[in-house]
């Protein structure tokens, strides 16, 4: 077993374990903390997959901003006895177990043992990044690569989704402010 595989297993086990803690702990603040571990471990997985920017963004946004958001919300919606009763489980939790088991089994089955499609891939729009006589050289690192993919005016890029995402963020900001106003 090489280093990548070993790291993967360690990170995966911690990841799954802490996500079980997120849904299992009684104290909701403890759950929020376990959620941070989940985010961190997910970043580790991204690193293993050579997606450095995603890993950094994950830490920044998720483990940073979203966690703080959640903790602030927890603070502002104080429950009476935080230690024991702040994260109760539904009466019909067993339905959740059954459903998630079935869904999970379905996905795993489809992914591993199920038959896979053999449809041929159609030709791309133009040549891709890094091919010898194209106008889009292969960027040196992942950050530049993602930058090229997001903003490049000449090569294949995802500029339009980027612009839309920014509008989404704008709307979310305004929405959150409006909803969260104390009136």
């Amino acid at each position, binding site marked *: 077993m090489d280093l990548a595989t070993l790291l993967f297993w360690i990170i995966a086990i911690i990841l799954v374990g802490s996500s079980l803690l997120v849904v299992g702990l009684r104290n909701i603040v403890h*759950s929020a903390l376990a959620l941070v571990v989940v985010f961190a471990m997910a970043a580790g997985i991204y690193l293993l*997959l050579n997606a450095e920017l995603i890993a950094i963004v994950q830490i920044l*946004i*998720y483990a940073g901003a979203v966690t703080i958001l959640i903790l602030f919300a927890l603070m502002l919606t104080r429950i009476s006895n935080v230690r024991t009763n702040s994260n109760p489980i*539904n009466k019909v939790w067993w*339905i959740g177990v059954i459903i998630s088991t079935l869904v999970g089994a379905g996905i795993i089955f489809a992914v591993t043992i199920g038959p896979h499609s053999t449809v041929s*891939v159609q030709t791309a729009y133009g040549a891709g990044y890094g091919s010898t006589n194209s106008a889009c050289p292969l960027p040196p690192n992942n950050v530049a690569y993602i930058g090229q993919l997001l903003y490049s005016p000449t090569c294949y890029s995802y500029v339009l989704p980027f612009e839309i995402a920014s509008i989404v963020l704008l709307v979310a900001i305004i929405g959150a402010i409006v909803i969260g106003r104390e009136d």
Partner: protein
Amino acid sequence: MGLSLNHFLVLGALLFCIGLYGAIAKHNAIAVLMGIEIMLNAVNITMVGFAFYNTVKPWSTFLTGQIFAIFIITVAAAEAAVALAMIISIYRKRNTVDVGEINLMKW
């Protein structure tokens, strides 16, 4: 044994299930939100896995999975903000964050 796409996909599936359970079976609205976050992370892992293990050129040069993951993170952050604002607003009105009690659309 070497890592293959299947490992990451199975990991994503497991996380998705756990997140689904958390979304269905918890009373606290913020716990439900945390479950949803876990689900989104699971999807992210899957997407990035696809981007890494894709070898067919020229599609593999477009890193589609990673771009997808960027946007998912973006939208998830926006959604978390709005959702938490709503939860705080409901808490102010009703003094509870129990989703079982938000049932005005009951029969």
